[in-house]
């Protein structure tokens, strides 16, 4: 597994021609006798959206904490933006932006005051503060609300403000720890629109953790993490392809002849399901043109179904990602949000 990971990282680094934004080697984190992270290796290429997918307690947050210099590794090493997270802590901190799971805004300050506080702590050059402030606030659609107290913001607005703040000092790597947890589906979608827009506009690498499958789909590459170990790293497409073949269903002019032709010309065993000729094949989309050209039987319709990331997760970890813990911590968060917003 490890060699596969290294190879993938090497390929990526070579293809982008830039040093990796994040480089992790043999990372272990122990809390007493508990091994939260059990020796992981991976690399994130500059400019990538890289997702850590795993259930709560899989080691996602511990890894992100180490990468953000908030925790020290027990073994192994990690570099972020070219700096060692243990030995060059301040350099790492200057080059990363952080958006945590839980809000870290001062609700008694205005949106603008929160950002100015951040600009001072991160030593953004004074003559650039105003323009950069406006830029990030407009990006998340909060420029008009800059003078409002954060306590008057909804959960989604607060998260957007945190993203704006994380970007204010133009970090090379932006860490988003469960960026949409506790938000309603509509807000979640809009947060993702900002993240994708951000990737296009800023020269930035985005590292995020999530336990939502549909969010992992947005990433360029994902690492599936469970029990403190990386089970797989690849693009969502490749991961799904690795699980198995796509399912292709066709409606033809003559089903019996079509099944015969599939067997003789493509060596594919097909059967009838839902009144359609059904078979499995690797990379179904690429297969469809050949099918049209070589089947020799009229085709009325085609559908290609991919395995979902749920299937991927299931195949690598032997279970689904659903966990009861998420619901309780989400409701705690909502409660806290209300309290803050009073």
């Amino acid at each position, binding site marked *: 597994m490890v060699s596969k990971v290294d190879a993938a990282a090497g390929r990526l680094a070579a293809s982008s021609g830039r040093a990796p934004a994040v480089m992790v080697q043999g990372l272990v984190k122990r809390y007493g006798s508990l091994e939260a992270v059990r020796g992981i290796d991976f690399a994130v290429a500059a400019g990538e959206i890289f997702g850590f997918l795993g259930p709560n307690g899989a080691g996602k947050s511990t890894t992100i904490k180490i990468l*953000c*210099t*908030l*925790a*020290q590794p027990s073994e192994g090493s990690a570099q972020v933006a070219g700096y060692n997270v243990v030995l060059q802590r*301040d*350099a790492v*901190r*200057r080059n990363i932006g*952080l958006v*945590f799971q*839980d*809000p*870290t*805004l*001062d*609700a*008694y*300050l205005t949106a603008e*005051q929160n950002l*100015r*506080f*951040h600009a*001072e*702590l*991160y*030593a*953004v*050059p004074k003559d*650039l503060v105003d*323009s*950069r402030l*406006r*830029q990030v606030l*407009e990006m998340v659609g909060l420029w008009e609300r800059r003078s409002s107290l954060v306590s008057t913001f909804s959960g989604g607005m607060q998260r957007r403000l945190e993203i704006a703040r994380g970007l*204010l*000092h*133009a970090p090379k790597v932006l860490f988003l720890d469960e960026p949409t947890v506790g938000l309603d589906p509509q807000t979640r979608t809009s947060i993702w629109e900002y993240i994708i*827009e951000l990737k*296009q*506009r*800023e*020269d930035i690498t985005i590292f995020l953790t999530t336990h939502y499958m549909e969010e992992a789909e947005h990433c360029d590459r994902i690492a599936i993490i469970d029990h403190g170990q990386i089970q797989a790293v690849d693009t969502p497409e490749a991961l799904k392809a690795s699980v198995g073949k796509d399912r292709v269903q066709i409606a033809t002019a003559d089903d019996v002849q079509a099944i015969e032709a599939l067997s003789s010309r493509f060596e594919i065993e097909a059967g009838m399901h839902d009144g359609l000729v059904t078979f499995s094949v690797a990379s179904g989309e690429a297969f469809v043109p050949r099918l049209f050209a070589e089947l020799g039987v009229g085709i009325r319709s085609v559908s290609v179904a991919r395995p979902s990331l749920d299937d991927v997760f299931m195949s690598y970890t032997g279970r689904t990602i659903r966990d009861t813990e998420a619901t309780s911590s989400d409701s705690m968060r909502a409660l*806290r949000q209300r309290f*803050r917003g009073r």
Partner: protein
Amino acid sequence: MATSTTSSPIELPDEVTAIRVSAPAGGFAQDLRAISIVWRRELIRFWRDKLRMVTSLIQPILFLFVLGTGLSTLAKHGMPPGVNLRTFLYPGVLAMSALFTALFSAGSIVWDREFGFLREMLVAPVSRGSIVLGKCLGGTTVATMQGIVILILAGLAGVPYRPILIVTLIGELLLLSFTLTAFGVMMAARIQQFQAFMAVTQMLVMPLFFLSGALYPLSGLPTWLTVLTRIDPLTYIVGPMRSAVFQSINMSPLARHLLSPGITWDGWLVPTGLSLAIVAVMGLAMAFIAIVEFRKND
């Protein structure tokens, strides 16, 4: 400090351009900026919280005008002619007003921790020292400002508005406020819940106040109380404050000695300078411990 404008693949709203900001490496200038912004945040929050400003005045005013006036009939015979009990209580009450505000201000660290904002400060590329120092200076400023409100009421307690007295008292308020805030920050480094912090504070405030000589002269006390008053750090600031107040009032030296005997260690009179130095050293030591604590709890 590289600044360049990169062209953007998508349309930008209005006149916004993509600005690349690369923060310079740290150093003294950056620490100063960090100290200054942490300090300013404290002032903004203090200013916004008008209710807190008013409520923290209630207790000192009760002590000064209700207790002071009520007990003055009882204390009439013990007091030299022309001196009011309120005047005697005034320095202690002044210290008290700073006491509450400074500790509450330091407690905002615990509050910040509970609501996540502390994390925003602790992950920034600035030294823990500058955050602790900014907090201490912020608390010092707001507590002194609260004390200045009580200073404005000095006339009602029979304390004259002499410039030299005002300046002395403000200086002593600053010193007291710094030490108290440093003490609060030191505790806040360890305590995780705001309720717990307030409970500890309440538990400490009254003994500190009652043992400081704010309510009675420090001479002629039983031995156990004498020892306790000499251990209380607040004693070493209330003493100089009271002697400053009585220095500016016309009264016989005997009466002055009776009401403001100074702080003695086994008969030796502690000079005002040493007294203030004790408070300053304690403040610096506690600020130092707070910095160490915050460095430890990564």
